[in-house]
């Protein structure tokens, strides 16, 4: 408390409470937000580095954009991960990935399920029948002691 923190009168205090309730009713956080965060930080507790999306790519990530692209690249200090989406003939989502190196374990995480795969000698990865919705990727470098890398959540 300092001199700028002018005390509220009872009407102001009640009004602020009303405002908090108002926004909780009008624009509540998504019901899954807490669980998603808890899950993500539980994985991150394995001491992962957070990968960043390369500039400009962010605009392409959201469904409904005027001209969506289907390619996105994440970068971290040691690894780069490029992802490209496609629909197969049955309309299922397929994600092809390229990572800087072979033998790298990469998990596609959807909700609380992780789908692990390992990059081949050319760094290639593929996931088929990927569920729609928010996804993130967790990378475990091949060399011992390498720091895991987690991407932010994206949605194709």
């Amino acid at each position, binding site marked *: 408390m300092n001199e700028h923190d002018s005390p509220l009168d009872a009407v102001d205090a*009640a009004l602020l409470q009303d405002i908090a309730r108002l926004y909780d009713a009008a*624009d509540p*956080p998504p019901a899954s937000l807490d669980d998603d965060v808890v899950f993500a930080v539980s994985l991150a507790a394995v001491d992962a*580095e957070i990968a960043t999306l390369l500039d400009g790519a962010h605009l392409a990530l959201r469904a409904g954009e005027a001209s969506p692209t289907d390619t996105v690249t994440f970068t971290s200090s040691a690894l780069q991960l490029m992802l490209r989406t496609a629909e197969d003939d049955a309309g299922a989502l397929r994600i092809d990935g390229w990572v800087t190196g072979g033998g790298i374990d990469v998990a596609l995480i959807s909700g609380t399920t992780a789908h692990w795969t390992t990059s081949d000698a050319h760094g290639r990865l593929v996931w088929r029948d990927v569920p729609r919705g928010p996804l993130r990727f967790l990378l475990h470098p091949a060399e011992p002691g390498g720091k895991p890398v987690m991407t932010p959540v994206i949605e194709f």
Partner: protein
Amino acid sequence: MTATTSLVEEAAELFAAFQDGRRGRIEPLVRLLNPTLWHVARACGLERADAEDVVQTAWLRLVDKADTVRDPRTVLAWLGTTVRREAWRISRERRRSLPWEDADDDGAVRRGPDPGDPAPGPAEALLRHEAQRVLWTHVSRLTPRCQAILRVVSRGGPPDYASLSEALGIPVGSIGPTRGRCLAALRASLAADPSWSPS
């Protein structure tokens, strides 16, 4: 959140335990602070999907850098600031300014319609109580700056204002007067409306 509880105090206790190796304490901490972080992100003008991403990113950064947060009482300000900076980065990519950074927008009541207003469209439909609909109408007439500030400072009690103002990137010395001006404008607007009866 009522004025008698302090987000900062409760969060400090949980985060100190987390730093001490009780990693499971992160879960109640997430549940305690997420609504506030969500409203910071939304007050920054982010769309809902972006707000979710940004809140997650802030938590991941915190877990990554937990050892560097020396005073657990700063965890709310730390997370809130990270949310705002990330929001700013995304807004900049989309060439938008944060609602309270409009230089010629210093009043408490907005001067005209703002087509870029990110306020949720169907809000009225979600508000079941007449009193809330009336309040929403009047809050919507405030400047984006006032809306953002009231939305965020209403999350905590007086002990939390310093952290919440830091989350907003507003000097703690000006948050009190600004909040006062915004509340005064809202009260005047409500007082002129015969359909308003305080809860």
